[in-house]
Each structure stands twice: as C-alpha cells, then as structure tokens.
C-alpha cells in the first residue's frame, strides 16, 4: 500500500495505517484505494477552485450492508471521518469529494443491485450504487411497464439523488417524495430498517411509508445521520400517452406573467409534472451547446453577456424571451382535457404561443419525454470553454409572479455585477414551490472567473437570507453558507441538527460538515484547522 499523502484530521499515521489495514480485511485490499492516482479520481471534477481543499485521504468501497457496518465500526475505533457517496456523480455539488479534507470516501458504487422490481405495485428496491441508467435498463428488461423519473444526468444514483432532494420531470419528479422504506447503517454501525421494514419479514416495506411511530426517512436525506444501504422507490406505471408542451411569452419582462399563468394549472394538477421556465440567457446557451458551440461563438466580452444581445439573437432565431416546457402524462382523452385548459390559459395572452406533440404507448421513447436517462445536458458545462464546471444557487420561492420576478431581477443584478452569465431555469417542486436555479458556469482554467463565481454565491446567500429565502442544496464549498441562511430563532434548526448528530454520532465520524452539520469536536472551527 502506498504512503498516504493526506491524513484525516487528528489521526496519527500509525492509527491511519491500522485503520486502512482493518478496512482491507473487511472489503479486500483491492477496494481500499490510497494511491495518488486513485485518490485523484475522488477529487471534485467540477471544483470551483482548488480541488485539493476537499481532497480525501483514501477511499473504501464495500460490497454489502454488512461490510458498511464493519467499516463504520472501524472508523469509530480509529476516529476516521467517512464521506459516503453512492455513484459519486453529484457534480456541481462536490462529486465524490468530502467537505472535510482528509476524510475517507465510503464509495458505495459497488453496491449496485436492483433487489426487487414490483410491477403490480409500482416500486423497486435498490442499493445506492444503482444509477438511473441501471434502473432504466432493469425496468426495460422487466418489460418496461414501470418508468423512472430521472434528473438531467443519468449517471447519478437513484438513492443519492432522492436523498439530496433531486428532481425529475414526471409526476414522480420530486424524488424525495418517492422514497418508501430505507435500510440504514447508523454511525455506530447498527443496522435499522424504517417504516414497515422494522417488522421482521414484512412484505409491506415499500408500500407504506409511515410504519408505527416517528417517520425517520426524512432524517437521512441531506444529512449525516446514517448510511442508506437500501431504499424503496415508487415508480410510475407507463402511461397511455405523453404530451410535450412548450409555451412562450413575447415580452422581456414576462416572467411574472409566466409564473402566474402556470401556478393555477400546476396547483389543480392540469400540469401533472415538473415544469421548467427558461430565461433568455439559458435559451441561448442551451441552443448553442446543443450545436457544440460555446460562448465565444456569440460574445467575446469579459463581463456577462448583455441582455439586449441575447434578446436580439433570440429574435433572429424566431424564439421568444421567456419559454417554459413540461410534459403531461395521462390517457389520450385526459391529455385532450389538460391541453384544452392550457390553451385556454395562454391563448388569452397576446403574443403567447403553445406548441405540443404527443407520444402513444407502443411508440419508441423519444428524448423530449425526459423519461430515459442520458448525459445530453452535460455539454453546457463547456460554455466558457473546457475544462468546464458549474455551481448553483437555487433558493426556494413562492410561485407568485411579483415575488419571483423581483427576486429574479435582484439575482440578475448581482450576476451582471460579478460578470457571470445568468443561466437560469425556474423549476416547480410539487404544486406549491419554485426553485430559481441560477447556474454559475466557469472554465476551470480561469481562476478569476471561479473567484467571481464563489464570491457571487456568498453575496447571493447573504442577501437571500436577509430577504427571507433559503437555498435548497449546495456545493460542498458552500454547505455552511447555505445552512447559515436558515436563521429562525438563532439558528434553532442547526442546534437541533447538532443535538441529533451528537446523539447518533458522538465520535463525529460520519460526513463531518455535510449540510453544515458539524460534530462537536469540529463545530467551532468547522474543520478549518485540518
């Protein structure tokens, strides 16, 4: 075994070596990864700065829940911080890299079994290494009667994405809502099953979330309270038909009108899946990226692309400034009714356009349906030229036109001030919430652009917090900043999280700093001493 170049904070070299040896006894020497080459594969591939700031000291890749239990117990013995990743593809949020430099990555990718597919009840039971690609293939092999909801990149983990509150574009698009039953290794190595899974021999684990007593599943999402080793996920039965809807509004200031027109349609379930409102910059960037073009093909200036240039280019392409897309899932007759209501709502707006297309059961799946995983969307990371990357600021906002429009403009002003192109999509999360997903692309060779992006995130988080907003998810570099936005009653929620953390994980070995939740020993300095 090569000499590790990075050690976990506060762990002696002798203890670290002993821990690695003990890990190897559990998972086999091939799956304790300490060489420089191997450790580099765990760095954040889209790091908005120095990736070494979040460098792991090693990785250990177990193959079963029992091996996870054993690894966690060893970590407690030697006080080794573990950073669990599922497929390690949480790019833009840190990929497979830990918050705390020197943590050992607990790589769950080898646990990649689809344990059950139940077509009668519409669920699957999966392990964390199962990607959206894997589950899609398994469902197709099982007859294709169930469909997944997938985020834009398909290499992510079904479990990991749901735990991180990810989104897809079907009626099952709020992935955390589709969780039903977990198996979890607690920070002390104990194994528990939640909901009906707590009944020995239960056949109802994946059909009833609540079991008896408190519902724990939420506590294992966006947290560092346990390692989820199995999870039930509800899946949509293949519908009879799908309709694509693209709506556009002609005015550069039409975002509030778009929000107010879509809101009632989503609330009464006429629109029964996630919609995306695309801002003018994103329309341009998506279009260019799909053609393999990048920023220099439209603008060579240093600051952010001027809005008037973007609007002019959109007009030349025959596109409107504000666009929204979504799909509807129903029987054919149901789609007729839904589409009639959507036309009625938009046809009364001068200049509004509605475009539709349909798919019927038996036809080949097409890309616009967004029900087959892919990696098509990743081309946008090269917007500033490669090697690219991005980070996001995505506050939760009430879908009321004026509130959304005002905050959107406030964020826009900061993007212009920091000279970053304002790529923005606004996605609903269920019927009542909207995310303003403001994306900061960068070129990883452009230190100045990355610095401006980091500073932009900080100022947006501080101003957003002062205005009463909170980010829904954050890159490992910004987990404290995002947690700081949740201010009520002297950060009472953080204090509660810390009390739970200290109770479940007194040694503080599991994912220190995740979501801004630090173990007692590292709380004051937030790991900065390491």
């Amino acid at each position, binding site marked *: 075994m090569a000499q590790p170049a990075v050690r976990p904070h506060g762990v002696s070299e002798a203890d670290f070596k002993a821990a690695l040896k003990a890990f190897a006894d559990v998972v086999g020497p091939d799956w304790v990864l300490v060489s420089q080459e191997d450790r580099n*594969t765990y760095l954040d*591939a889209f790091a908005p700065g120095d990736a070494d700031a979040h460098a792991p000291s090693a990785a250990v890749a177990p193959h079963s829940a029992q091996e996870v239990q054993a690894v966690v117990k060893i970590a407690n013995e030697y006080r080794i911080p573990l950073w669990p990743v599922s497929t390690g593809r949480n790019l833009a949020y840190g990929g497979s890299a830990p918050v705390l430099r020197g943590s050992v990555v607990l790589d769950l990718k*080898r646990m990649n079994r689809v344990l059950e597919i139940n077509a009668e009840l519409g669920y699957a039971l999966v392990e964390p290494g199962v990607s959206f*690609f894997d589950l899609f293939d398994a469902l197709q092999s099982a007859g294709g009667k169930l469909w997944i909801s997938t985020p834009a990149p398909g290499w992510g983990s079904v479990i990991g994405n749901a735990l991180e509150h990810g989104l897809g574009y079907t009626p099952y698009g709020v992935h955390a809502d589709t969780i039903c039953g977990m198996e979890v290794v607690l920070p002390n190595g104990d194994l528990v099953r939640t909901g009906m899974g707590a009944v020995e021999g239960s056949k109802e684990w994946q059909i009833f979330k609540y079991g008896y007593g408190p519902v724990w599943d939420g506590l294992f999402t966006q947290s560092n309270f346990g390692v989820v080793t199995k999870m039930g996920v509800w899946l949509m039965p293949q519908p009879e038909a799908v309709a694509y809807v693209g709506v556009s509004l002609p005015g550069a200031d039409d975002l509030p009108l778009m929000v107010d027109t879509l809101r009632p349609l989503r609330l009464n379930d006429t629109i029964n899946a996630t919609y995306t409102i695309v801002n003018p910059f994103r329309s341009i960037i998506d279009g260019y990226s799909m053609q*393999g073009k990048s920023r220099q093909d439209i603008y060579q200036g240093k600051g952010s692309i001027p809005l008037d240039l973007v609007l002019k280019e959109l007009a030349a392409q025959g596109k409107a400034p504000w666009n929204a897309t979504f799909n509807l899932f129903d029987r054919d007759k149901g789609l007729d009714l839904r589409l009639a209501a959507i036309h009625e709502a938009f046809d009364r707006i001068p200049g509004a356009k509605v475009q539709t297309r349909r798919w019927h059961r038996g036809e080949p799946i097409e890309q616009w349906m967004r029900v087959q995983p*892919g*990696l098509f969307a990743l*081309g946008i990371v090269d917007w500033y030229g*490669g090697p690219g*990357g991005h980070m996001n600021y995505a506050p939760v906002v009430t879908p009321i036109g004026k509130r959304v429009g005002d905050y959107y403009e406030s964020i826009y002003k900061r993007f212009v001030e920091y000279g970053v192109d304002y790529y923005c999509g606004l996605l609903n999360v269920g019927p009542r919430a909207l995310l303003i997903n403001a994306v900061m692309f960068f070129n990883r060779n452009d230190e100045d652009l990355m610095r401006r992006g980091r500073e932009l995130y900080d100022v947006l988080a501080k101003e957003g917090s002062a205005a009463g907003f909170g980010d829904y998810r954050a890159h490992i570099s910004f987990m404290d900043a995002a947690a700081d936005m949740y201010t009520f009653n002297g950060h009472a929620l953080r204090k509660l999280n810390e009390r739970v953390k200290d109770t479940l994980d007194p040694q503080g070995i599991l994912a220190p700093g995740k979501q801004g939740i630090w173990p007692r020993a590292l709380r004051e300095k937030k790991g900065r001493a390491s």
Partner: protein
Amino acid sequence: MKALSSLLVLAFALATGVASADDEALSPQQQQGKRAYNHICVYCHSPGVWGTNRLSKRMDKEKAVLENRTDLSAALVQTVVRTGIGSMPPLRKSELSDADLAAVAAYLARSR
C-alpha cells in the same frame, strides 16, 4: 433522436447478450471491452452527444466517435479514463474496474 434510439438498441443488445457478426472478429477481451464501452462510455461518446461534439471541434465528425478512431493506443485510453480530460471527469475503479478498463482500451485500440 437517432442517438437515443441507438442507445436503446444498444441497451437491449447488452441486456440480451446479442452478438453481431462484427463481434466475432473481436478477441474475447475486446468483446468484453465493447460491452463495458456500451454500458458506460457510450452515453457521452455516441454520435451527437457531449464527448463526440467536443471532439468534433478538432477532428472530422466520423472520427470524433471513439469507436471509429484508428489512432488510439490502449495506454492513452487507460490514462485518459483514470485522469479525465477537459470536462470529462475521471472514472473510479468502483465504476470501471481495471480489468474492464483494460478491455475497453483493447477494444478502442483494435484498429491501430
């Protein structure tokens, strides 16, 4: 759209273990490599998608599809996969084992 349809065909071919006449000309290791390529690499390196689009900026479009290249060495493929290149992140051993990587490299270097 064509790319997506071909991905579906590939996925089914993979699941059902269908071998084409072309496969019979491949060594067992190259066949293993082709299977791994179609399971992992194809999502970025089939026609019309990200990796191919990037490569087509500096070579002709047909050669930008990795499977059509005749100049790739096994060593280059192995290095690029483990270190990443441009915006392509490295692949970890837990995603693509050393044996499967060696097979992918043998498959992509078969025409050299």
